[in-house]
Every structure is written in C-alpha cells, then in structure tokens.
C-alpha cells in the first residue's frame, strides 16, 4: 500500500528570508557596497545639506573670488565668490530632487503605458509600442532641450522635461513582463486554484516583477542625473543662481586654465556619485535576479 518514495533528499530548512539572501549576495560585491555607502552619504547630504551649508547658494563674496581651498572656504570660491562647498551641498539637493522626481515621472508613465499595451494587445499595443520605438530612436537630449526652452529652467520644468522623455524603457520592460506572465503556467495555475485577478496580481505577479522594477529604477536614477547635468553644460540647466553640478562644471570649464580646482570638487564628486549609483544598480541586479545575468 505504501508508496515507494523516491529517496527524498533532506530538504534544508531555510530560516533566511529572500531579502536576507539577496543582501548576502549583494554584500559579497565590494564595489556595490562601496557604491551604496557613497549613495547613502549623497542622499543624506541632499537632505541635510542646506542646513549645514556655511553659506547660502546665492551668497557672493566679491572680495574673495577664485580662491583655492582654505579654512574659510574649504573647497574654494568661484568667479563670483560663491562658496564652492555650499554650492555643492545645494547642488546635491537639487540633483536628487530632479533625478528622483524625473525617474518617478518616467516610471509612472512607463508603467501605465506598458500595462496598457500588454493587457490591451492588438492595435493599442501596436500604437503604444511604435511610440516607444519613436522615443527610443529620437535623441532624448534634443527633446529635453526643446522642452526646457519651452517651459523654462525651473526645478519642475526640468524635472518633467527629463521625466517625459525617459519612459520608453520602462514601458517596454513592463509590457514584456505582462506578456510573459499573462500567459504563464503560473498564472493559469493560480486561476485554476480559484484565485481572483486581484489575488493573482498581488501574490503571483507583483512579487515576480518587483525586483525587475527595483533594478530598472536603480539604473534610471544615474541616467537622469546625467541628463540634467548635460542640460547645464549647454546652459539650459537650473537658472543661476541656482547651483547644479552641471552649472559648476560648465563654469569651471570656462576657467580651467587659471583655476583648475574649480573643476576638481564638483566634477570629482559628481563622477563618483554616478559611478556609485551604477555600482549599486549592478549590485542590485545581481543580488535580486541571480539567474538573470547582466
């Protein structure tokens, strides 16, 4: 009567949660950990920076222009006597606001259009995906410029200009996830079990797409940071006196021969930040989708 069992190999008890396992994998990647530390510092700076900044971002000290680092101005001053350290602290704040805001805007647009395309199918899908192709093919930088010229150089216009151009990748990702899951055995099995669409979305679909989204967002933020800096380089970043990394670098570039230290701090910090975000994104990718590869 008794069923002859295949010798059930001992199933290891697994007290660890998936998140703990992911963290294990993440922490083995030293670059990702270093990047994470820098990113956290950068974010903290963005939050508390304006309070610890020794000077306001518009404060000028015309008696001390083009100063090298000193106790009074630890990162020196620029051509108008702005304190570089304070400028960088404020830049960090604006950079974070714009990059996170723009990424959120892109993501929301991408999720809506991706879901719509994937679920509706047919001609709707076709139209949305051609729009996605168009957004991919069209240089987004050019579109950013047009939008900023049209709507101004404030924080919000820049945020939306970058956000509106950057959603194509998210839409494509979400659509492909929807398509692959919608016809999957897993979803069919859940339906066969008697699960409602809401239950399926919550317990079967969402947990399986969340890591993909986290990774996509992690890659999106450094991209948007670069996009806003690129706008500043051609003079279409935040309007002075509002500082931004792009403005600082562009300004330093004009004075590079006489006053090279103007470049070192903003460019160095910005480069390190981009690199760190990239490392974090790579680390997350590896830790959350170990089978996915890169």
């Amino acid at each position, binding site marked *: 009567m008794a069923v002859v069992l295949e010798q059930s190999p001992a199933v290891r*008890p697994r007290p660890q949660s998936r998140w703990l396992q992911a963290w294990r994998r993440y922490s083995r990647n030293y670059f990702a950990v270093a990047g994470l530390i820098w990113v956290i510092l950068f974010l903290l700076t963005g939050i508390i920076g304006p309070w610890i900044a020794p000077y306001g971002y518009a404060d000028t000290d015309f008696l001390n222009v083009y100063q090298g680092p000193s106790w009074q101005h630890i990162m020196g001053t620029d051509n108008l006597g702005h304190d570089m350290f304070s400028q960088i602290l404020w830049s960090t704040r604006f950079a974070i606001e714009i990059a996170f805001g723009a990424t959120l805007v892109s993501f929301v647009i991408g999720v809506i259009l991706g879901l719509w395309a994937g679920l509706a199918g047919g001609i709707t899908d076709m139209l949305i995906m051609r729009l996605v192709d168009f957004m991919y093919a069209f240089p987004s930088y050019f579109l950013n410029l047009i939008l900023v010229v049209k709507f101004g150089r404030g924080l919000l216009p820049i945020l939306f200009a970058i956000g509106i151009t950057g959603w194509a990748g998210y839409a494509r990702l979400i659509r492909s996830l929807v398509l692959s899951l919608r016809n999957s055995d*897993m979803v069919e099995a859940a339906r*066969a079990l008697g699960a409602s669409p809401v239950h399926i979305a919550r317990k079967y679909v969402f947990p*399986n797409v969340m890591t993909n989204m986290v990774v996509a967002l992690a890659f999106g933020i450094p991209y948007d940071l670069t996009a806003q800096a690129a706008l500043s380089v051609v003079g279409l970043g935040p309007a002075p006196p509002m500082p931004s990394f792009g403005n600082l670098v562009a300004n330093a570039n004009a004075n590079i021969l006489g006053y090279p230290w103007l470049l070192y701090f903003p460019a160095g910090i910005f480069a390190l930040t981009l690199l760190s975000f990239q490392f974090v994104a790579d680390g997350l990718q590896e830790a959350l989708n170990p089978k996915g590869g890169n």
Partner: protein
Amino acid sequence: MSIEPLVKATEVSKRFHVQGKVLRAVERVSFELHPGKTLGVVGESGSGKSTLGRVVLKLLEADGGSVTFEGTDLSKVPRKTLRQMRRHMQMVFQDPMASLNPRMTVFDAIEDGLKIHGIGKSAAERRMRVEEVLERVGLPRSAGVAYPHELSGGQLQRVGIARALALRPKFVVLDEPVSALDVSIQAQVIQLLRELRDEMQLAYMFISHNLAVVEYLSDEVLVLYLGEVVEQAPVEELFAKPSHPYTQALMRSVLKVPTSPDEVQDLTPISGEIPSPFAPPPGCPFHPRCPVAQEVCRQKKPEIREISPGHRVSCHLA
C-alpha cells in the same frame, strides 16, 4: 437511467483565431465522468488534449457545446461562482516548476488555495491541513519551507498534486502529470495518483501521450486526432480491440512489456507528421497517414458511430 455524472461534456468545441486563420483545437468532444473514475485522453502533440482539459475546467471558454459539473452548466455560471466552484475541480500541470510561484515556499503555495477558499478557520488549522496533505503525497513536512527551485522534478510534481488535493476536490484534470519526470519517478507518481483516486473517490481526466500509463489508470479512453475524437471506448475494450487505424498505429508505436524473453515486438512509428491544424485534410483527417485509407476516406468525413456498447469510432472502415 444511470446516475448523474459528475462531469459531462456535450459536443464541446474550441477554436483559436490566429492571424485571421481558424485553428480547430477541439471539435465536438463528448464524454461523461463519474466519481472515482478516470477518463484517459491520448493523442500526439497538437491533438488538442491539453486544450480540452482547459475547456472542461473553463480556464478557456468553449466555443460550442457545454460542460456541466454536478449538473451545473459552467458556461452559465458567473465568474465569482466559478471561482468558488474551482475548489471542487482542480488541475495538475505538466511542468510543476513553471506552474508554481518561484517566490512562494511550498507551504505558502499549498496554503494559498486554502486561503482563497476560506478553508480552515485559523492559521494553525491550515498548517495542519497542509502538513497532512504534504505527508499524504509523500513529502516530509520540512519540505514546506523549501522554494520550488530547491526541489527535484518528482518532489515538485508531488507539490503540484498536494496543492490540488489540499482543497479536497471531486474532479482533477491531470495534464501530462508525469511527462516531465524521469521514468523511475513516473511510476511512483502514477501509483500515488491511483491511490489518491481510490481513497478520495476522485474523478480524473488524465491527459497523456503515454498509452501504457493511460491503460494503467483509466476506465475509459478518448483518442484525439486534430482535435476530434477518433475512438472512444472502455479501456479494456480499446486495448483489446483498437478499431481506428490511428489507435492501432499508436499502439504499434510503443513497446510493451514482453511476455517472454524472446518475444519479438513489432515497433512501427506512425508515418508522417500530424497535419497543420489550420488546414486539416479534407475527408477523414487521418487519411494522409492511414495505412488502409481508401477513396471514400479522401472524399467523405466519417461520422462517429457506436460499433459496440460504449465503443465509438470515427472511421469508414471500422
């Protein structure tokens, strides 16, 4: 007047529309299934057997005909009621890995069905029931904490079976439940399925391309070809007197357990490929591959008819 069947399919059809063309996946299939009985469904890949299983459970909408479960016509049931009815009609899938959520432990996967149907008043009660069913399908309780990728194919299929059975269904569609398993494991799982059926008076619809397994488990067998029933008979009758050339060819294409060491078996593969379901041949759909086809087979489509009680064949020559 026989007793009311648990599942009754009447002239069920399913068509798919693919790029403007019509694919007849299932054409006018009828059967009755009683508690404790098993209906075997055999056919090559593309014969529509998996589609039939899904239509019977209304995972796919039928285009014609009707399926009744305990006398209730599934096509007339509102969605919410249908979801509640699923408690009594479950499915086991061919690929257990793909049909389980990789982010859910075995315990959660089995418990989810109980939660959906509000079975078990407390977490403790549900836990007991999950552990009970895990042990019943031959898995240790500790398997509950495992994720699907940590288990072998045979263990995973036991999880698939446990998930379906935890709801104590009356009817289970088994869609090639052992095809993805090693041969050595297949026998164990088949044996388990048979025990569970007899214990719980389950009705099975057993979909397979493996005739030996179907013979072992089934009471009645449907042979499908290009979505149509070519032969339908009680299992002993079918294996003793296969009357459709396709059924005969299927049986010749598999090795049987030899009765003596020097028995020579005639192993003949079926010639040709299954035709495109988009363009089924005129006349009898099997005639291009049929060894005994005659002119009438090319011209006229045979009607299914009863050649002896309960034995129905769709062939001009039978």
